[in-house]
């Protein structure tokens, strides 16, 4: 299909947002843009993006298939996403999803026959305080019960547009894709729709009711110059040095607590400190100039001797190969050229050495 002139003009506008020699940054918005015309990223959409950015189709396809929001099959007018991540699931999200799936007769990423609704289960939608949540074209319906969810989809199928709990009045999925491509919501008043929900305001309301605020806020507090700050820091350091008592005798090192049995297969690796492995790993990932980073557990430095020479590895490999038992026909293991040809012929005639008609596979009980 060929894309409309509007889409082409929008594509130029998107590309202009990024530095001239970095136009590839426009790829994500452009993929949203082609969805706004076709409802999904079709091969033609991939080609369009490749053409306007000077990429090849494989480069664009690799990106399009990576992200969940790029759909690879035509979608309905409304995308209904039900959160089934842990918190929403525990609070009833899975029940909502199952109810909708049964009622609509579609599964994950499938569209109803009337082309109205595509259903999906979604991962955490960042609204756990409103859980269980569902979104229609990404606008929120909070604290949904199965019946409420049914009412929403029924109204959508009947041509209505129920108002989301938070967020703007609904538009179609294609219209939403225009916004995702980075364009303003042109509908009159849509940006103003949807006030804050109560859970977002809970802490604030408490503070307001009880007159709690943070004291001492003076917007005229001067900003110190860096030189001033450096001087103050030096003075403070000198003061601390002067006030320092004589060095304490070194404390006896506490014996490490015996580790609880965890079933780990690496009992020979001692952790460098008593931190939990997750904490230590997290710290290792965020080194700053002042932090000494211990080796991650399992890091083995060859401190006991010289590193193995490359020929050791080759010798080990040869020894391993020599120890392999010969193949069943008495020939050395591995593919001889003749054997490969024979296998091919056998496969074509359908009388493979391992026997059996392919149709039998279904009767073997392998797949239930």
């Amino acid at each position, binding site marked *: 299909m060929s894309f409309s002139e509007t889409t082409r003009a929008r594509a130029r506008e998107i590309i202009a947002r990024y530095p001239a020699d970095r136009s590839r940054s426009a790829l994500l918005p452009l993929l949203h843009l082609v969805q706004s015309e076709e409802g999904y990223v079709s091969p033609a959409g991939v080609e369009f993006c490749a053409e306007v950015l000077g990429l090849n189709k494989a480069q664009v396809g690799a990106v399009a298939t990576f992200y969940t929001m790029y759909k690879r099959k035509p979608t309905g007018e409304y995308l209904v996403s039900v959160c089934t*991540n*842990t918190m929403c699931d525990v609070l009833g999200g899975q029940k909502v999803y199952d109810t909708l799936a049964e009622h609509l007769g579609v599964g994950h990423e499938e569209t109803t026959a009337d082309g109205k609704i595509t259903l999906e289960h979604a991962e955490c939608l*960042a609204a756990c305080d409103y859980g269980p949540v569902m979104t229609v074209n990404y606008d929120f319906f909070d604290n949904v019960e199965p019946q409420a969810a049914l009412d929403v989809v029924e109204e959508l199928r009947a041509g209505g547009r129920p108002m989301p709990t938070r967020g703007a009045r609904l538009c179609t999925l294609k219209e939403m894709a225009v916004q*995702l491509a980075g364009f303003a919501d042109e509908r009159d008043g849509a940006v103003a729709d949807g006030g804050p929900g109560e859970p977002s305001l809970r802490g604030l309301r408490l503070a307001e009711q009880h007159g709690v605020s943070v004291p001492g*806020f003076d917007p005229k507090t001067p900003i110190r110059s860096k030189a001033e700050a450096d001087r103050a820091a030096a003075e403070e350091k000198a003061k601390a040095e002067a006030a320092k008592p004589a060095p304490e005798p070194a404390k006896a090192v506490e014996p490490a607590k015996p580790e609880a049995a965890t079933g780990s*297969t690496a009992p020979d690796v001692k952790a460098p400190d008593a*931190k*939990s492995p997750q904490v230590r790993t997290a710290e290792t990932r965020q080194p700053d100039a002042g932090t000494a980073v211990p080796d991650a557990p399992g890091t083995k430095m060859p401190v006991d001797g010289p590193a193995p020479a490359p020929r050791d590895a080759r010798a080990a490999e040869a020894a391993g190969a020599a120890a392999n038992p010969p193949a069943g026909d008495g020939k050395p293991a591995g593919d001889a050229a003749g054997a490969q040809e024979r296998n091919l012929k056998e496969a074509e005639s359908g009388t493979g050495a391992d026997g059996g008609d392919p149709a039998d596979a279904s009767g073997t009980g392998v797949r239930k």
Partner: protein
Amino acid sequence: MTTPRPETLAKLTPVLTKRWLSPDAWRLGTYEKLDGYAALRKALKAHPDDLIQLIKDSGLRGRGGAGFPTGLKWGFIPQGDGKPHYLVVNADEGEPGTCKDLPLMTHDPHSLVEGVIIASYAIRANRAYIYIRGEAVHAARRLRSAVDEAYAKGYLGRNVLGSGFDLDLVVHSGAGAYICGEETALLDSLEGFRGQPRLRPPFPATHGLYASPTVVNNVGTIASVPYIVLGGADWWKTMGTEKSSGPMIYSLSGRIANPGQYECSMGITLRELIELAGGMKPGHNLKFWTPGGSSTPLLTAEHLDVPLDFEGVAGAGSILGTTATQIFSDQDCPVYATYRWLEFYHHESCGKCTPCREGNYWMVRVYRRILAGQGTHEDLDTLLDTCDNILGRSFCGLGDGATSSVTSSLKYFKQDYLDYIEGRTAPKLSDKSLVGAH
């Protein structure tokens, strides 16, 4: 519902959330009446180095999970190197349990925009991006409208407020990939590639966006900046603890009377947070909780009095993360909860590193077997063994996060696993769901 005690209420610190009560604060006019853009005017009169020093003095630490000192990060940007500098705001909020950045951008988008301008001025960046999660459409609407208003009023664009400083700001929507919340994956995604993490070093401070010096900061971090510029570092440090200064938005969800956002002084305990939230839901007793999203090891009722700052939570063997406290009760099963999280990590693993891609795939299957009543004692060893082989062995922290709930739930709730394996708990998944799942 009982009223919280006054000493607990005193820990509330409405700073970043304060404007949410004004329904029109997302409009420029209202924002300006509420101290809006006053910090920018003040900051533009100061030298950029003074601003970096101010943020260092404030002790502000990253709000995205890792808690890296923000001033230090800004200070890493080499100055006078002749390369363009970039500021990228990580608004790809998606850590399960976290829901603080979306309301902030929806109800007070200008505070983020103002923070972006000040931060860009400090690190000498003339181009900034806000990479916002694709699904966050309403927050993006408000944010785009705020950026347009700021351009029209001269806060953005050429010669900001006559200071000679130029800044372009683009709001860039993602497309549904949790991994893009990882800073280097986010940069790859912003460059138009698959969102896969890069090996570090080199760090983004020298080789970030377009191989140029880049600061990547979370929404909460950048939105804090205008308040520090106005109130000063000393005022900021009146909140929080010595090493974890300032207010923090705690996102409470689950089995409590009033789930929601509670902005409190850092170092508050879960006991106090639950008190603020009106207690547990009737009939529920606390069993396990995440201090900072599903990537942080679970804690239990014995940790009710752990101070929720970076050091306190690390001392208890977990991570403060994004302060997303998901609260589960004795009616929730830690094995099933962990299974659902693993489904998530399996789905969101970008596939670049084998330990994370394969490990999560297989762990999900082991969990299905256990939950279907077909698990064996060996499965528990297999899980720990797999975690050993994921943790610290991939480019980024996604795999590490996946192991958190597995190892911690096995540590605290081994009996729950044994109950499935030894037939005391009825299977939660049927054979049918075993075959058809996903």
